[in-house]
């Protein structure tokens, strides 16, 4: 087990710089998720930690040791690939024991460790099978088993659940989390799925276009997103954003959208007429007798929740309600917004104002 320190890491392909000086500190035993849209550099960063990509600038430390030029085989890490990367010509047991065999471990030791990992992952009956004889979920387990057998300093996961169906994905998510709680090995996990990030991480690193947008605990990011990007990326359904200005009248402030919709805000240290982006999560909107008047365009009941896609004039505001409500498309209703749960971002810098 080890901490991982990423200092001013830069990645260039020729002239093109795709990661621009990233800093992340990962504590020993922490479960860190790198999340962001495709092309944000999260996989490249992971591959640099693994040693599969060269580091163009900055410093990378694993367990205090600078590993910039250390080849992957000497970094003492284990990695689970999106494609699982199983050796097609080796059985499950051989796949799992390969790293130990390379290290020169005895047959008895390999066998014992493989069996132990197999029992943890419920793979005992599959040990003599070849990868092509396994289902996607089983292959995924073998890939994890191969990582566990190593007992490495750091686990790296590169979108390991992306090729599984939705149900299996949720099950494996829980398993990986449990595994981490049991083994307490430092884990770095890459995903584009913000729900995976929220549910699994001790700490989330949100990336975009080769920059780190925000680092924090899942609920920190949810409650206090630094900027419009993080606010929109974290949380599902996505946060409502409305362009407009802050108006002060007689000491009271309120938000007026470019289309004239008036919405409540907390007191803000900005002057009258300051252009802002108003953000409110759909789940923080309630129905009431009075409030913002909206016309419901589409109603999506899912049983546990009801999502309303609605318009206040020209402004789009969606709401997610816990209860079943008797609202139909075309109805006019009133949305109540708690100003304490509203996020205000500067329209120019896109950064959080409060």
């Amino acid at each position, binding site marked *: 087990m080890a901490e991982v320190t990423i200092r001013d890491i830069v990645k260039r392909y020729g002239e093109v710089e795709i990661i621009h000086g990233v800093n992340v500190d990962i504590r020993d035993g922490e479960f860190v998720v790198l999340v962001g849209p495709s092309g944000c550099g999260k996989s490249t960063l992971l591959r640099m930690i693994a040693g599969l990509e060269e580091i163009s600038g900055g410093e990378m430390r694993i367990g205090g040791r600078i590993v910039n030029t250390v080849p992957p*085989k000497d970094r003492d890490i284990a990695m689970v690939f999106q494609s699982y990367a199983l050796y097609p010509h080796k059985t499950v047991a051989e796949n799992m024991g390969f790293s130990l065999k390379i290290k020169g471990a005895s047959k008895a030791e390999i066998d014992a460790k493989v069996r132990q990992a197999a029992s943890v992952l419920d793979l005992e009956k599959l040990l003599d099978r070849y990868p092509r004889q396994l289902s996607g979920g089983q292959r995924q387990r073998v890939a994890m088993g191969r990582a566990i057998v190593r007992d490495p300093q750091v686990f790296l996961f590169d979108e390991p659940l992306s090729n599984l169906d939705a149900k299996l994905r949720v099950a494996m998510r829980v398993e990986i989390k449990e595994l981490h709680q049991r083994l307490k090995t430092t884990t770095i996990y890459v995903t584009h799925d913000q729900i995976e990030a929220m549910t699994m991480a001790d700490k989330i690193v949100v990336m975009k276009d080769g920059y780190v947008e925000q680092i924090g605990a899942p609920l920190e990011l949810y409650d206090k997103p630094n900027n419009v990007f993080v606010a929109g990326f974290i949380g599902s359904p996505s946060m409502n954003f409305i362009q407009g200005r802050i108006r002060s009248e007689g000491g009271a402030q309120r938000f007026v959208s470019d289309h004239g919709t008036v919405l409540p805000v907390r007191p803000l240290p900005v002057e009258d007429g300051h252009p802002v982006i108003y953000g409110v999560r759909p789940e923080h909107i309630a129905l009431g007798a009075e409030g913002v008047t909206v016309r419901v365009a589409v109603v999506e009941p899912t049983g546990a929740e009801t999502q309303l896609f609605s318009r206040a004039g020209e402004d789009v505001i969606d709401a997610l309600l816990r209860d079943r409500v008797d609202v139909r498309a075309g109805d006019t209703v009133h949305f109540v917004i708690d100003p304490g749960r509203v996020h205000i971002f500067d329209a120019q810098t896109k950064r959080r104002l409060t």
Partner: protein
Amino acid sequence: MGSNRTGWLLLTPTLVILGVFGILPFIYVLWVAFHQWNAFGANPYMIYNGADNFRRLVFDTEFLESIWFTFQFGFFAVVSEIVLGYFLAQFLMRDFPGKAVFRTLHTLPLIVAPIVVGSVWRLMMTPSIGIIPYFLDAWFGYQLNIGSNAGAAFVVTVIMDIWHWTPLVTLTLLAAIVALPKDPFEQAQIDGANRWQIFWHITLPMIRPAILATVFIRLMDALRTVDEIWMLTGGGPGSATRYIGLHIWKVVFPKTDYGYGSAISVIVLYLTLVLCWLLYVGLVAPRNGRRT
């Protein structure tokens, strides 16, 4: 029913061509193999002689020697071609200036007719006019004469075959290597394997089917090579490079011993099949996971 008939209809041209040019001649050779027949001799008719031809070749030292030379030739040529072809394929996986030109140039031998290859090599090898004996003499003081040195003649036939057919091996292995997934190799690096271990444990097993297919193709080809050798050495000196294809040709045409020549052909086909079957049983079947 309808689709069945369409299927047979579509297969007919292939079956006809295969039948006329493959199966009928083969049956004819089998038929001739059980006869004594010398069409230009005193008695130009076929005379049935049972298994006499086959009995004869068991004690025919010329034939046995020829078989032995042929296997040596096949072994050295194919092994060298596979090793060399693999390295060339790996070389072509890298980027270097002039790669496309090199790749094209290096496949040129493949499109040259064997008889031309034989002629050119003969020209290059002939003492006093050939470029290779000239330089061997000038640089190393070695007198190369494939007309008198049996060992040298054998080596030169092997080198000619390597020159002619390594590009084929390179291309098939290159196709296999290009098609390999990238991830298992990265995984192997992370698993702690060095280059040699990755080659031995990952690359080799993963391209094994391609290697075996290439070995089969090349071995069958090498065992029946005639024209290049005929042109280069004529089977000599003595019978040092009289490989089995050439041997059959000499029995059938100059000697016009059709029956005996056919019998040798049948036995050579049988031996080739046995060899491939042994290779298959020894190398392919036990590692094939589908069987478990």
